[in-house]
């Protein structure tokens, strides 16, 4: 193996980002991933297990892990925490009743040490549905201001249905990760 191939390997590694998508069931995680990737979103079954999508975004390669949010399989989320650069927490802004659950699961997730360095993007999804809470209201309910000050986070309102807000959110996430990551080892 020559020097050039080693350098290439490092370069390739450098531009890769691992993004973990989590959130309660019915929040729209799979729809968001497919929408970003320009795929058909009209037939999506609730995720049993997980999906991985590799997407080229700007000059980076995103490995997006979309993990099912049903209660039974939430305990498996932790199997995907390792080496996560970006965490996307998806909220169904129209599901007012379960915001309590949503807050609890997010709080539990953020206690996880393996995710402590990951940038956190909160997507307040389903903004196209009338009666949905605004991102500001969601931020208040989830008490995001009280988060650990070392965490890089942002909340963005979006609609996986229309695609609105998705690029804004992922632009921020990718930029934030890129500004933190450099060749180290």
């Amino acid at each position, binding site marked *: 193996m020559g020097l050039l191939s080693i350098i290439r390997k490092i370069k390739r590694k450098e531009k890769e980002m691992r993004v973990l998508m989590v959130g309660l069931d*019915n929040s729209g995680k799979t729809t968001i991933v497919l929408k970003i990737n320009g795929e058909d979103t009209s037939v999506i079954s609730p995720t049993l297990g997980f999906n991985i999508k590799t997407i080229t975004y700007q000059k980076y390669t995103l490995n997006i892990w979309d993990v099912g949010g049903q209660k039974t399989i939430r305990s498996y989320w932790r199997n995907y925490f390792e080496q996560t650069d970006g965490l996307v927490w998806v909220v169904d802004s129209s*599901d007012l*009743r379960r915001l309590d659950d949503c807050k609890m699961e997010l709080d539990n997730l953020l206690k996880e040490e393996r995710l402590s360095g990951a940038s956190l993007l909160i997507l307040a999804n389903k903004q196209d549905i009338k009666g949905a809470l605004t991102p500001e209201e969601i931020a*208040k309910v989830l008490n995001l201001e009280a988060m650990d000050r070392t965490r890089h986070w942002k909340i963005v309102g979006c609609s996986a249905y229309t695609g609105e807000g998705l690029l804004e959110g992922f632009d921020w996430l990718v930029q934030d990760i890129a500004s933190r990551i450099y060749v180290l080892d």
Partner: protein
Amino acid sequence: MEIENEDALPTSNQALDPDLQKKHLSMLERLSNRHQSRLENSLALRSDSNSSSSSSSSAFLSRFSDSKRSIESQIAQSRLNHPTELSKLRSHLDNISASISDLEKLVAESSYFLPSYEVRSSLKTVSDLKQALEILNSELIPRKKFSFKNKASKKDPITEPTETTLEVSNSVSISHERLSLPVRDSPGFKNKKGEILVKDFKGSELGEFTLLDLDSCEVRLIGSVRALFMHKLRNCSVYAGPVTGSILIEEAEDCVFVMASHQIRIHNVKMSDLYLRVRSRPIIEDCNGVRFAPYCLSYEGVEEDLRDASLDEETGNWANVDDFRWLRAVQSPNWSVLLENERAEMVNIANLGGGTEGN
């Protein structure tokens, strides 16, 4: 050039004639000058618009140590005298934290031209600073001590009615606080018993609709809506036009559902029949005794509503149920297909007597 240089090196040790030594020195100087200018050239070529200020390692190093020193002195000073007001103190600490982040960013931006030793040692400095700030933070703003409070013993029978059973199963996290924000009410039918509830979505601007805490009710939803939530239904019949987003049912018993949607999730439902049309696979979780059959609803304009919602096609998915509590190849014992001779006839909700129009 390099070869000349190497040739010249050993001679420098053996003090030869001063003339030669002088020549050698001047050559070394020229070499280092050239090296410097070459380095600067290549950096200028590579640097983008934002790196005008940080164009070489020495510039970086001096900038880095300047901000490092300023942050260190800020931290040291804060320890001696700091704003007494909590909010001011917080923002003061936030400022320090922000300048550490800036410093980290500077390292990141410069990492491509810095020698790896410098990158490593700069990062070490950054993490030391972070740690110092963290210590300062814990000294100035002590965290709330965790303690068990004797709350549970003081049972208030009025404020916590039926939710207790659900709460117990969820109480993994002890510090789970109740929501502080009074969440606005969503439109729907709530807390009814023995009523016929009718809602026509035609012409209404509703996005989501909720059925909550219904006992022995018949619910007729005409027209289409984006999202439908159902929670705590007992002995009810729910007849619904197309839902263009998703349906979520949690906790129902002895009910009949006739519904069409893009996605359907069914949690904690017992002894109920579901007549569905779904574009994707319906899922059940913590259910038992649930039986499935195809959609069988009619009212004036239902075909058109279904077509508009892309639900006019019978996909057969009503029978492709995924049970999240039964991840095996063999048929789950929690659900079954409703036998044809046990299925209800086509339900026409327009012809079923009147009821109360909901909000």
